[in-house]
């Protein structure tokens, strides 16, 4: 599904050079549910950003579904993100002025499909997360757990093969967090969606197929 080979990422400022990732090699198979753990600032989010093609490594290669994306231009990367990758964030990142259904439709706006088809796909995604009844609410009218479910619906509405979740339960209580984990597990099992999730929670990590630990920008085996 995705393969990272000797990936290095260093951030440069005027005076400081910060090594975020060092010689990371990693392979995730299709249908796997992988969790990434590590202390704050160890490079988890950087790793997720590189896997999600939001950031480029200084060195190393990335292969996504047998495509080497290293030399891809910005527009090609945007297309891959749109069609193959779904993102779930700790802070939900819903657009407050848009209704739930419009938030879920957002990734489909960047595809050439009719508004009718967009609506169908968005409703289907909301159905999967159990929120079709709230499609015309605004995000502020929903609880934190419901907002995260909307964010998941948004991530899966384009039927991506890879879901990247950056601490998806980080802002939720344990009950709501459990609901979110259940949805992710269902997506993984029923839809065969590959999921890579950053988490701080050991219990959540144990529910995944594989745990990857990161420390000081390196993988710990």
């Amino acid at each position, binding site marked *: 599904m995705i393969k990272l080979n000797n990936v290095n990422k260093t951030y440069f400022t005027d005076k400081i050079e910060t090594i975020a990732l060092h010689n990371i090699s990693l392979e995730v198979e299709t249908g796997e549910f992988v969790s990434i753990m590590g202390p704050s600032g160890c490079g988890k*989010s*950087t790793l997720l*950003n590189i896997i*999600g093609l*939001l*950031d480029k490594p200084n060195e190393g290669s990335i292969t996504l579904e047998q495509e080497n994306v290293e030399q891809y231009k*910005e*527009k090609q990367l*945007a*297309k891959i*993100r*749109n*069609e193959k990758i779904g*993102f779930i*964030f700790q*802070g939900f*990142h819903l*657009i407050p*002025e*848009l209704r739930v259904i*419009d938030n879920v439709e*957002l*990734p489909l*706006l*960047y*595809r050439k499909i009719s*508004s009718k088809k967009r609506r169908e796909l968005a409703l289907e995604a909301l159905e999967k997360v159990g929120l079709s009844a709230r499609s015309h609410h605004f995000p502020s009218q929903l609880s934190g757990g419901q907002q995260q479910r909307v964010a998941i619906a*948004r991530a899966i509405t*384009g039927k991506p093969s890879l879901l990247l979740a950056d601490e998806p339960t980080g802002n939720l209580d344990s009950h709501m967090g459990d609901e979110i984990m259940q949805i992710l597990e269902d997506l993984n099992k029923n839809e065969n969606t590959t999921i890579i999730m950053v988490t701080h929670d050991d219990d959540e990590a144990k529910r995944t197929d594989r745990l990857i630990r990161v420390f000081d920008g390196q993988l710990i085996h």
Partner: protein
Amino acid sequence: MFSHILKLIWNRKRNNALMITEIAIAFIVVLMISVLAVSNYRNYQVPLGYEWQDHWQISLGISGGWSTDTNRETLRQMIAALKSQEAIDSVGVVKEPLFFNSVWQSSTRSDDRLITFNANTLDDEAFETLSVNFLAGRAFDERDNGQGYRPVIVNQLFVDTYFSNGDALDKLMPGDNANGGTLPRKIIGIVEEFRQYGELAKPVPYVISRFDIATGHQPSAIVIKVKEGTDINYEQHLSTLLKGIAPEWHFSFVTLKSQRSQSIENELTPLIVLSIVALFFVIMVALGLFGVLWQNITRRTQEIGLRRAIGASAMSVHQQIIGELMMLAAFGILAGLVLAIQVPLLGLFPELDWFSFWVSFAIAVAVILSLSFVCALYPSKMATRIDPAYALHYE
């Protein structure tokens, strides 16, 4: 994407209200200037109807009242003296001077219809002196003496306005007691135009009556056509000549060329001043839009980062930001139009016709949309530089 932007704008209507108001006011200001400019341009395109290049206008300050036979005889002598000058080709008399805003409005009722027009009185020679362009009929001459009608000459616009079949020549209109008693007016000639107030004034239906020294009202000017190359120094000679005939009268000389320039300047100066004020205002609005948009981009860093993450290319973001401002501009224009259209609808500005309004509307729309586009260019470019990986962790 269009409906998406529309939703965003609508759902952010409170935040956008100020921007829409600013755009609406700027639109109205630009529309107002455009209306004035377009009206002036359209007026300028209409023929003047007479020549002015080698003509002088001598304003008459008649002493002791016009009604006296002495003054009427004095005027006869002055005209004869002027005609005898080698440098003068022809001489005419006008009641209302040319390129002055001296307006004589009149009206009459015919077949229960009110006919209103602007009027003037010219003597028989004035038409030749000014090379007035006749479309039909003729100028006043001896054939009009002692007739049972009062001859008048009208412009084509008068015919178009009051004679739907276009057949006006030799037609009679009721007279009025003030001028020529109750004798009916007979249209003996139709001129292309006679734009007494100059090229920038709105053309109006115009009726010219015959000036007769013996019975006519007090004239205000003599118009002379001088030979080509006669310079203004000749004024002194003429002044001496006329003062010799009428020492009590006052004369002021002006070339129609300079009077025309003055008339154009008088019309254009307020427009230029207004345009400069409007330009400053529009620049202020543009800076305001630019600032608000810049602030919006900063406020929406996370949203833009999210859009980039879920598949929006830099170009999509660029287009969206420009699209949003263009749509705000469209709302502003719509709001401005609702207010501005009341002016022609209610006839608040009689000079304004619908054609000029819609042409000006198109110009104002183009100006406001272009301005909005330019204002959106840099902030939208800035939005494309937002790094999604950074923006999604931006607080």
